[in-house]
């Protein structure tokens, strides 16, 4: 009798994922985010300003059942521009730079902030990807501009709680911050120009 229930239970389990998932995101505290920006003498930066320039700003992913169907939304607890802004400011601080009332202005636009779910035989992959362009300026005079991206692939044996989504998204956020910290072009631009 129990064997006859197995397939219906599995089918129901794959189909019963209709609840939206809310994900709080932040860079884990044990991530150093140190890169070539730490070789640059300490500079003052004003608060980072990011806009969400995505086409679909209502969600950051879809929850899917085992058949690949969209059953619910994956949502960020905070606006994605706040999440990325905080990540960039944390990265600057970890590389020895300071937030101040005046200094280098950092503005940017997010073009991608998405997490996808892919079911395998024994586990599920959660693949997160973030893309944004940042512009660094001194008194509205553009100093440097570049496109940055962060991505992460997390494998989990379950997709029931928000944890695997959170791990993947935090990993992508860390990867994005590292991409900025590792940018030798940015480090060179900051070294060559003095603050206004």
């Amino acid at each position: 009798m129990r064997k006859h229930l197995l397939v219906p239970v599995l089918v129901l389990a794959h189909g019963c994922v209709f609840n939206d998932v809310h994900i709080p995101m932040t860079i884990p505290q044990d991530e150093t985010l140190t890169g070539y920006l730490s070789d640059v003498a300490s500079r003052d930066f004003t608060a980072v300003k990011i806009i969400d320039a995505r086409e679909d700003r209502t969600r950051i992913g879809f929850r899917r059942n085992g058949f690949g169907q969209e059953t619910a939304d994956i949502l960020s607890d905070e606006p994605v521009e706040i999440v990325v802004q905080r990540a960039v400011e944390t990265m600057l601080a970890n590389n020895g730079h300071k937030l101040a009332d005046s200094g280098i202005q950092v503005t940017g636009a997010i073009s991608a902030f998405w997490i996808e779910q892919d079911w395998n035989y024994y586990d599920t992959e959660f693949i997160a990807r973030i893309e944004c362009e940042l512009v660094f300026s001194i008194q509205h005079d553009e100093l440097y501009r570049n496109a940055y991206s962060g991505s992460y692939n997390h494998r989990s044996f379950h997709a029931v709680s928000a944890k695997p989504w959170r791990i993947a998204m935090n990993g992508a956020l860390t990867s994005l911050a590292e991409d900025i910290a590792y940018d030798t072009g940015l480090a060179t631009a900051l070294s060559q120009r003095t603050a206004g």
Partner: protein
Amino acid sequence: MLGSRRKSQAIQGNIVHRSSTVTRVALVPLSLWVLLTADVANAAAPVTNLYLSIVRDGEFEVILSRSKGVDASVLFGWVGITLMMDSRHARDTEREALVAPGAEATVCRSGFERALRNRLEEKNFFVAIEPNRQLPVLKVKIVACGFRVLNRSTKEMSAFFDATYRLRQAGTRQSPRAQRLFVAGNVLAAWSEFEQSPALAADEFQQVQMRAGQTLANKIIFAGGN
């Protein structure tokens, strides 16, 4: 300056090569002697050695949807999985040929390893020829590379590189937990766009390998080396 650096490299290469015949007591003072005789101009950039071990080369894949295989397992049992996998693998080979003509182009390792070694050596990290317990060991396992769907709603794909790595510190036997290295390409497009432009696909694939190699090298450089 460059000649002195190469001499130091050659000296250090000989030390690593002969490590089996040199006692541990002699190795430490010899290493110190090499460091002390390094070119003065390089003294500000510490010389760091490590041993690189890529234990798995990974497979080139074009992943449109793995979930179809799972559907088969739920409804039709494990035979269904085998059939779906064979079908998917056959189709992957066709797509591989479309975007990556030539054997070199479907190899996950070459571009990644080249970028990794180049960035390490630019920053004075020298990769030893043979393993040595006095050196940190960077062990990399390439899981897969190729193209995969990153948004199943829009069917957009990008190039990708997926690996795990561990950096074991010198003189320890304890292996740290594996870290994930996943790099997705900058271009997100439908598969038909990559099919119609093999040059775009090949360029994206090379770029993602290079970024993966440079990213891992940067992580090692800023992790402190040995």
